């Protein structure tokens, strides 16, 4: 992949991607570039931080307060869970129970719990609960991604 940089003081910031076929790699590139425009602000002890969306592991709403969890930090967000889901769903974030959305990229494995729920283990070892209602969304996301790679191989 070649990167061509053109300095043009007259124009706005523009990114042009030239590709042979639309494959998973191109899709990922588009997603990464689009994510630059998404600003998720979290506060930790009153200090506000702009978070890179790919550093977010999951977002949870507890007693009407929204918390953003990264690998080893927790931030508070002023936004509601549904607002964050709207902003992040195209970047691989899915709702896993009524009060939590998760970045699929950090999902390591799932295990069945009693009462038809799944225990999701994340790459940092943390566990979150996936309820039955939201399992199809996760399957659909994983299927969609797999389809992109399969199309690429044809």
């Amino acid at each position, binding site marked *: 992949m070649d990167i061509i940089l053109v300095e043009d003081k007259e124009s706005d910031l523009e990114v042009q991607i030239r590709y042979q076929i639309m494959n998973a790699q191109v899709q990922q590139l588009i997603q990464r570039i689009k994510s630059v425009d998404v600003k998720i602000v979290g506060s930790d002890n009153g200090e506000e931080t702009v978070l890179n969306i790919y550093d977010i592991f999951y977002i949870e709403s507890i007693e009407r307060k929204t918390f953003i969890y990264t690998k080893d930090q927790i931030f508070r967000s002023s936004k509601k869970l549904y607002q964050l889901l709207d902003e992040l769903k195209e970047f691989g974030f899915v709702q896993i129970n*009524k009060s939590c959305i998760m970045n699929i990229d950090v999902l390591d494995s*799932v*295990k*069945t*719990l009693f009462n038809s*729920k*799944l225990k999701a283990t994340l790459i940092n070892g943390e566990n979150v609960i996936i309820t039955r209602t939201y*399992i199809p969304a996760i399957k659909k996301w*994983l299927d969609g991604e797999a389809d992109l790679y399969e199309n690429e191989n044809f």
Partner: protein
Amino acid sequence: MKMKIFRDYIISSLAISMLIIFWVFCIDAFFYNMWSNFKVIMSIVICLMQSAINLALDNRPIISMLLEYAVVVILFFCFGIKFNWYSKGSEWFVFIYTIPVYAAGYLLRLIGVRKDANYINIKLSERKKRKVQETESNN
């Protein structure tokens, strides 16, 4: 977007219609003593109870399971007495009757979820393999 608005419109219309029907049947039952329709509606309410409990106690699996069972037992007990499902003196049978029905339903649900868990784990391991291949080819 249009599809979502259309779907939401259908869901809210159906919900309002169901609420109207529910109240009409309630009035029929309590004021005009027409219990036959009310029984049907209450069966639907019993079926929806499980979803309502799951929604309310999303992150508390043990409590929600116990509460779900307790609600089913209480509802069967109340309806059994109201509609003479049990013979006199053997109302306590409800606790036994409910267990196999609940257990069968629970096992069926568990099998479905196990299948989903296996499917997700397979997809995740395929995904990991792809990432490793991508990293290797980039290097």
